[in-house]
């Protein structure tokens, strides 16, 4: 496993198991300084959850509680399991992620899909299954990157573009609202929006006062 600190992002590559990341979490957290706003995992082929249920739950909870944006990226993410895909906030690839029509998502998986892709995408999936369509379904899970040999640079450019033009405090304020949304609980996001809005307003007012 390789860990590299970029500008606002830590890149973890050379892994095929989320458990390895979980077991090395202290080492990873050593890289997560105050400027770090994202962790990007670039798997070697597939990326699996531990087979042991308790270990899988621990790993899932670890990722859900990370206070940075979580990104998974690969030229093709097709070898990554659906449950791992939807554990990440953002999924980047050169090709979309396909679901086999023979494999119908569970209620919990559909909830993840809706959080990742929105209501319209969820409705499209429901219609596809309801129509008894065969073959594969093109999901909206992946944000497509322009093809480039240097995937890491490509990913870093994407991430930097999100955070550009804003300082760490403002980026963290926005990020905290999105982190609340990981579990799909509207009320907690709404509350965090208002809290962070007023903190940013206060800072804006303090800055203006200092300038006067």
């Amino acid at each position: 496993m390789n860990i590299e600190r970029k500008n606002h992002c830590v890149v973890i590559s050379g892994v095929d198991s989320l458990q390895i990341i979980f077991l090395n979490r202290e080492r990873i957290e050593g890289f997560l300084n105050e400027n770090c706003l994202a962790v990007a995992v670039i798997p070697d082929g597939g990326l699996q959850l531990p087979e042991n249920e308790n270990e899988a739950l621990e790993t899932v909870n670890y990722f859900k509680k990370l206070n940075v944006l979580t990104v998974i990226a690969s030229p093709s993410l097709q070898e990554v399991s659906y449950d791992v895909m939807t554990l990440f906030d953002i999924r980047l690839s050169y090709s979309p992620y396909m679901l086999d029509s023979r494999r119908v998502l569970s209620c919990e998986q559909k909830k993840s899909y809706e959080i990742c892709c929105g209501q319209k995408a969820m409705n499209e999936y429901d219609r596809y299954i309801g129509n008894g369509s065969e073959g594969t379904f093109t999901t909206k899970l992946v944000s497509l990157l322009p093809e480039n040999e240097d995937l890491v640079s490509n990913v870093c450019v994407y991430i930097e573009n999100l955070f550009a033009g804003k300082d760490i405090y403002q980026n963290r304020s926005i990020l905290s609202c999105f982190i609340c949304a990981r579990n799909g609980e509207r009320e907690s996001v709404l509350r965090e929006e208002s809290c962070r809005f007023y903190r940013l307003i206060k800072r804006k007012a303090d800055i203006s006062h200092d300038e006067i």
Partner: protein
Amino acid sequence: MKYDDEYFTLSEENGILVMTMQAPGNNLMTGEFFDRYQEIISQIRKKTNVKGLIIKGGGRHFSVGADVESLSERSASELLDMKNDYDFSCGHTAQKESVLCLLELPYPVVSTISGFCIGSGSEIAVSSHVRICETNARIGQPESTFGILPGLGGIARTIEVCGFSAAAEMVFTGTLISAQKAYEIGWADILTEKKQSFDEAVALIEWINKNIEKYDNRKAGCYVVEYLADKGETNI
């Protein structure tokens, strides 16, 4: 029933309420705008036997969003009374509730969008059940470019409508997107040519009232698809 002032008109045509925003500065959302908006929403909530509500801009634009400087000043003055980070002012809570309450109205709420639909304007639209965008529409949540973030449900609702990553791209970057892009990410439900969104909204509301026995706002997107299929269309 009519309501007509320099900021809004509210009319009713064949059981369909039409709220038209006609405030100065392309519906610049000042404190006065929000006060009038809350008044008109409280009137709408009292109405019964309504087939649907259409929200639209009276001129070329849906809304250019909040007047950021005056919003910052008003909000900064509210800070003095806040006992802690979650002790939001009554004004903010009422304002937010008046936007989000659109979601809970028991009939179709359709925003018809032309021109700019940005900031708090976008927050009103995204809290509607359906968004019909004309091809010239430009949508966005540019609050991050002003040093703040969307505070009236824009983050929560954009995530629900478009998904986490599309919403992250919109909110973090503050970039305006085209109507076509809005459709691709799920923000827009229907695209129309210029000046056709209102008629489309009326037709959609009439179709829902005729074909759907018990309206469920969570299924509004599904109704749109059925409506378009009935028309023999997928979309432009």
